[in-house]
């Protein structure tokens, strides 16, 4: 691991003021420290932001929640209001990592964790995400593509985003508050405190031609909180399929919500998939098929088909398309009241 200077930030402004090229913000460290040990990332200055951002969950007028970026994953999933009003979110977090990691990992850090693509994590391999322009070992002949993307990928990067939390936030229409250095943001026409809101979906990018950028955040921008809109009606859940029953990343996961009106027709449907793309995948095409019609198995099958029609599985992961289709149909059927 490369040597680094260390500082604690006492406020978001303090954190962004300390940021410079080559610096990294530290939350719980459960991903960053590992990446530093692997040599995947080598900051020369580490800024501990756990004292700079809120670690509280606050209900705001209108029924939504504001979640500080410093809230630990375990405190998020055990919070009574999260369990009661946003069950898909509690379940997504509970399905991520282990008890020890959830105790340390923060909300902000969870959203900004890096892919677990084995070629990204192995510094002896080419990787456009880690070293832009070096190539993509995951698309080379003989590569292990079992856990790579099936949607939205490019020949330059087929990695998937590993967060469960982000998939639920994508289905819940959450938004993320970010701040940057005041002078910088004013020049960009942002709020005086250097803040802006980023919607989910929208925080995470598809790889395009720049897979080294996981998100739309600019260097030095800091996530300070996540805002959940008032709870939606209907029923919701999170389901994760993985190679073992616990403590593993998703092969495919789904956050889903179904709300059927008094007329028997679906008035709200949200579907987000994890494990299939470079970003949490909001299945808008599938949602459009379900909205406005009575819920039924054949409708859900058509919805899954509409979403997955353009999937491009790689040599070793066609199973993910089947898995995603089955998850969409099965979970939506279970959500019918």
């Amino acid at each position, binding site marked *: *691991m490369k*040597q*680094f*200077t*260390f500082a604690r930030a006492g406020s978001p402004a303090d954190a962004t003021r300390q940021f410079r090229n080559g610096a990294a913000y*530290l939350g*719980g*460290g*459960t991903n960053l*420290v*590992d990446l*530093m*040990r692997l040599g995947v990332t080598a900051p020369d200055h*580490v800024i*501990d932001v*756990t004292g700079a951002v809120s670690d509280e969950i606050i209900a705001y007028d209108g029924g939504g929640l504001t979640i500080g970026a410093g809230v630990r994953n*375990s405190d998020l*999933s*055990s919070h*009574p209001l999260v*369990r*009661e009003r946003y*069950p898909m979110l*509690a*379940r997504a977090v*509970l*399905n991520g*990592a*282990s*008890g*020890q*990691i959830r*105790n*340390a990992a923060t909300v902000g850090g969870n959203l900004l964790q890096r892919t677990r693509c084995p070629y990204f994590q192995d510094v002896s391999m080419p990787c456009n995400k880690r070293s832009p322009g070096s190539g993509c070992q995951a698309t080379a002949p003989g590569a292990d593509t079992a856990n790579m993307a099936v949607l939205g990928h490019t020949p330059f990067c087929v990695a998937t985003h590993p967060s469960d939390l982000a998939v639920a936030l994508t289905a819940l229409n959450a938004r993320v508050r970010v701040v940057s250095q005041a002078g910088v943001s004013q020049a960009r026409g942002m709020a005086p405190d250097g803040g802006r809101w980023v919607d989910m979906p929208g925080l995470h990018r598809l790889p395009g031609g720049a897979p080294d950028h996981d998100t739309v955040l600019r260097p030095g921008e800091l996530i300070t909180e996540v805002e959940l809109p008032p709870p939606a009606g209907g029923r919701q859940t999170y389901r994760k399929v993985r190679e073992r*029953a*616990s*403590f593993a990343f998703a092969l495919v996961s789904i956050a889903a919500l179904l709300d059927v009106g008094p007329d028997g027709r679906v008035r709200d449907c949200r579907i987000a998939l994890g494990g299939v793309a470079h970003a949490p995948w909001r299945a808008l095409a599938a949602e459009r098929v379900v909205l406005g019609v009575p819920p039924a198995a054949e409708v859900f099958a058509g919805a899954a088909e509409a979403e997955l029609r353009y999937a491009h599985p790689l040599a070793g992961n066609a199973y993910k398309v089947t898995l995603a289709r089955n998850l969409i149909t099965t979970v939506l059927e279970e959500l019918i009241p």
Partner: protein
Amino acid sequence: MDSAYATRITVTVNGEPRAVAIDNRTSVLDLLRERFGLTGTKKGCDHGQCGACTVLANGRRVNACLALAVAYDGASIQTVEGLAGPGGLHPLQGAFLRHDAFQCGYCTPGQLCSAVGMLTEAGPSAVTADLTEDPPLTPGEIRERMSGNLCRCGAYVNIVRAISSELPPGGELADPVSATSLGDTAPYPPAGRLAEQEARS
């Protein structure tokens, strides 16, 4: 050591405050083992995947290998060496012996610290059917909650039995007298699961 890359920190380890200057790259795990000589905490994978390094930091179980010591300045750390008290072994240590819950023993310190921390954690798990309840700790719940601790010998069956045997009927550990302090900030034994449930309702 270049001073720009080093920091003087104070941590309370098993109740004893200790000041030390460390290279900023030092993990809590390496601090415990290499600087303090507390080798009970084990290094398995050093990537947060095996749980052998589990300790309690401010009363919460964490992977010491992924914890930068410099970020834990001021924290209270409890290791397996701090589980036994004046009255003898921690109840869970006794249970692991009675139930033959280990073979080679390498994962055992992490299993013990993890179990002690796990029993203080309120709320549902990934296998809980009703998220609004604090479910009873069935063997299935224990397996899910302990999934961050691998045992290559495969002693899982008896680990679950050992933990099950020490489940507090009223939500508190059976024998708080022999359990040592978690340090200067966290009460021990912690407030029980049922007490927390009642406080919320």
